[in-house]
């Protein structure tokens, strides 16, 4: 068969077939089970805004969290199905609209972040499932005239001694009855779980092996134009004016227009837009950023680190203890900017009409994007519809407080009669993104007569992510950014209900938050721990060695009053065979962290050859994430976090030079590849506590564990990252 295809020939049939229209969860919607074809107009039993049961037996759940590899779309149906007593295959997920009733119970916003999706849904979704089950049993009791206590529910059916019905067949009866109160239903005990705690492959997994999964970049709408944006080589620069004549000669280009962040070329296919963009001439206003470079910031921050900062924590009297100590250890750790390089480059699609706007965006922060677009267009928030495609990785990038990539699509589409899809090139993604900020940590410490840490004095210098954003009130305490200090405070502070788990008798932490200039700082998987983890856990290692103590012994001693961390460390010692000798040329390092309540610790084993090639042979990880709802995904998230932590410490670095970012693509911003992947062993502490996160947690100990292992193998302390600048190459 021969057909002639140009972009305009993308017929509605093909469009629907290929894109699934706007039903963005297509490919993961599983067929409903139960009574089939019994009603033409389905009756619907709405339990609450999240859960609905239809008369054909289908169970529809509104998913109010994004899926970007985290496993949200698997956890959500699992939680409902367990209490409702339906098979997972009965559940259909829909992307919940951006409305307040769907905001995260933790954040009060429509946001998937902080590795707390499971924690935040654990109560509400199970309760909704239990309410629905109780209502259906109540309806059956009324229908049959038997006590509810004599009726059981399983596999989407209710049963008495002699009768049974599908849930769907009870919908009409149940609609006329009161929904049981949340407080009146009891939830299953973990011992009775049949789904929770069992390995469950991802709900949308099939679509991800067939190419059917629809990401934001895969959205195809009738008449849609593609846009490529030329951006100023200096970060943050704006277009003054431009000459589009050459671009407009490119076949397929239909329009060239300035938007806030550059000049957009609109064309009938992406390649035409790119070619048009490449022949644009733009006169730029480079702005203030030409004054800024990474090296300048490192120098300024090192100077600041020597000066008294804002006092975040002062336990005991560190300064006196350090003054009295015979020997002190002092180190400075320097960490570069990092970027996320999600495999799916930033993109978004928008259709802007006079009274409404539709957006297809891989944002993980829908309420923020809606708010920003609402302000931009002068339309009420409910006039802004945000569709939710699958997301090709985030690692924090798509929780953009500026809503940058979504806003760009709206700007590009504004004034057009058709939808416009903006696709960033990888170079734009690397050079025009938001970044893990650059940090300098200065540490001084001393050990006691037993060689155990006695005094700790840390000064943390770096730009705040939250300052001057709407989150400023929660994260800026007495003028200092406590987000940057997550992972180096011994006691709970502000919004962080946990400390390091360690008890160092004298513990002082100061901080400086230099002006927010240069690139935009952004969360990067594990956020504060991505730098505090390195500084804290490596310096703790330095202190252990200065006291002649085993680094794991020291951690077990310091965490002795923290039950959960003590258990994690004891299991790690055992599972990693910590006390067993390693071959020559190998080294072993340990690090332990608490992030977002979850204690997690790792041992890394490295081998180093004479040429400076090193391999991370094995990483053993122990985590206490409460009840592990889906152990298969816990393991996946931990493998993922370790891979990303290793990738960053080994070779990742964004360098700002006179306002320009030096890196551009995977050749100069190298990320971990398959041959470099260590063998990872994951051990989960058995627990029936409330589930907490693992997605970011797993990354936090990896970099320091690897650095400590390299020290053990080579005797070299690396204090400026990445490792590749120290004649050591990860193989």
């Amino acid at each position, binding site marked *: 068969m021969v057909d002639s295809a140009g972009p305009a020939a993308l017929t509605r049939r093909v469009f629907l077939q290929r894109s699934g229209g706007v039903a963005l969860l297509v490919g993961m919607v599983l067929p409903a089970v139960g009574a089939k074809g019994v009603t033409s107009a389905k009756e619907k039993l709405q339990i609450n805004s999240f859960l609905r049961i239809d008369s054909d037996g289908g169970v529809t759940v509104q998913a109010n969290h994004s899926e970007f590899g985290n496993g949200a779309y698997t956890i959500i149906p699992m939680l409902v199905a367990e209490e409702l007593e339906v098979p997972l295959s009965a559940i259909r997920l829909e992307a919940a609209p951006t409305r307040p009733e769907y905001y995260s119970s933790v954040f009060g916003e429509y946001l998937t972040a902080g590795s707390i999706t499971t924690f935040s849904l654990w109560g509400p979704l199970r309760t909704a499932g239990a309410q629905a089950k109780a209502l259906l049993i109540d309806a059956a009791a009324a229908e049959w005239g038997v006590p509810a206590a004599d009726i059981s529910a399983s596999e989407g059916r209710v049963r008495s001694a002699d009768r049974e019905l599908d849930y769907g067949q009870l919908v009409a009866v149940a609609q006329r009855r009161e929904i049981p109160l949340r407080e009146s239903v009891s939830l299953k005990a973990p011992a009775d779980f049949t789904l929770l705690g069992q390995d469950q492959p991802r709900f949308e997994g099939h679509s991800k092996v067939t190419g059917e999964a629809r990401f934001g970049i895969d959205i195809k709408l009738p008449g849609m134009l593609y846009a490529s944006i030329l951006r100023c080589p200096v970060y943050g620069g704006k277009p003054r004016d431009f000459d589009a004549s050459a671009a407009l000669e490119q076949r397929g280009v239909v329009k060239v227009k300035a938007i806030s962040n550059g000049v957009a070329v609109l064309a009938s296919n992406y390649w035409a837009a790119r070619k048009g963009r490449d022949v644009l001439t733009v006169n730029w206003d480079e702005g203030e950023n030409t004054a800024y470079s990474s090296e300048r910031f490192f120098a300024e921050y090192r100077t600041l680190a020597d000066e008294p900062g804002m006092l975040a924590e002062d336990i005991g009297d560190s300064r006196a203890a350090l003054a009295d100590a015979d020997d002190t250890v002092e180190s400075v750790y320097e960490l570069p900017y990092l970027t996320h390089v999600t495999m799916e480059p930033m993109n978004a699609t928008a259709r802007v009409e006079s009274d409404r706007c539709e957006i297809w965006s891989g944002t993980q922060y829908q309420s923020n994007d809606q708010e920003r677009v609402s302000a931009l267009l002068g339309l009420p928030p409910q006039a802004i519809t945000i569709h939710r495609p699958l997301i090709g*990785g985030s690692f924090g990038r798509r929780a953009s407080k500026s809503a940058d990539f979504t806003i760009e699509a709206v700007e590009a589409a504004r004034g057009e009669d058709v939808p416009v899809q903006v696709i960033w090139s990888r170079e734009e993604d690397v050079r025009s993104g938001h970044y893990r900020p650059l940090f300098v940590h200065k540490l001084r410490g001393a050990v006691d007569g037993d060689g155990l840490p006695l005094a700790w004095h840390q000064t943390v210098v770096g730009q705040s992510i939250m300052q001057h954003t709407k989150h400023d009130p929660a994260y800026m305490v007495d003028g200092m950014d406590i987000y940057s200090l997550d992972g180096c405070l011994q006691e709970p502070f502000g919004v962080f209900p946990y400390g390091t788990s360690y008890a160092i008798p004298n513990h002082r932490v100061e901080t400086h938050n230099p002006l927010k200039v240069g690139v935009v700082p952004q969360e990067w998987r594990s956020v504060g721990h991505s730098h505090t983890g390195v500084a804290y856990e490596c310096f703790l290692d330095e202190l252990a060695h200065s006291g002649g103590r085993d680094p794991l012994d020291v951690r077990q001693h310091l965490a002795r009053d923290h039950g959960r961390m003590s258990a994690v460390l004891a299991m790690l010692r055992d599972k990693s065979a910590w006390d067993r000798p390693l071959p020559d040329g190998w080294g072993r390092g340990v690090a332990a962290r608490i992030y977002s309540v979850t204690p997690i610790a790792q041992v890394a084993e490295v081998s180093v050859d004479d040429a400076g090639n090193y391999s991370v042979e094995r990483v053993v990880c122990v985590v206490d994430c409460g009840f592990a709802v889906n152990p298969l995904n816990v393991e996946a998230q931990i493998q993922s976090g370790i891979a990303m932590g290793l990738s960053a410490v080994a070779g990742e670095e964004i360098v700002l030079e006179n306002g320009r970012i030096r890196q551009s693509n995977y050749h100069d911003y190298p990320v971990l590849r398959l041959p470099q992947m260590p063998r990872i062993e994951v051990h989960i502490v058995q627990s029936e506590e409330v589930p907490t996160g693992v997605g970011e947690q797993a990354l936090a100990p990896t970099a320091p564990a690897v650095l400590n292992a390299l020290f053990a193998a080579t005797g070299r302390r690396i204090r400026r990252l990445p490792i590749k600048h120290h004649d050591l190459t990860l193989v």
Partner: protein
Amino acid sequence: MYSLSVNGQVHEVDADADTPLLWVLRDFLALTGTKFGCGMGLCGACTVSLDGRPVRACTLRVSDVGEGEVRTIEALATDGELNVVQRAWLDLDVAQCGYCQSGQIMAATMLLEANPKPDDAAIDSAMSGNVCRCGTYQRIREAVKLAAERLPNAGGDHG
């Protein structure tokens, strides 16, 4: 006009000669399973088969495809039946965000077609060009081995 053979069908495509095959597949033929990752042949997200060999569609000009047979992720399953690599990927729950996995699965499929019993070195060599930012590499390695074991004529020889 270029005449392209993609997944067993011939398509006439009116694209500029320098248009990468990737954008022809995605924007002209609406075959969006093949992904854009880097545009420089560095990440492997756009890996497709050209006459059975892996190529990076983001750097292959449409004018250079010639009469070769292009096969994409959309054509791996037969009548809804996953191929052995897709099946192993699903059974071991390899994908996380999933964006790179079309390219990974294409690379693994072509590896096993050329070498049904790859050792670790062969897997490293064939798969090192495919980046996964989620770091699913451990399961990728396991899935390639599982798929190899399940191949017809794999016999009982498990390495």
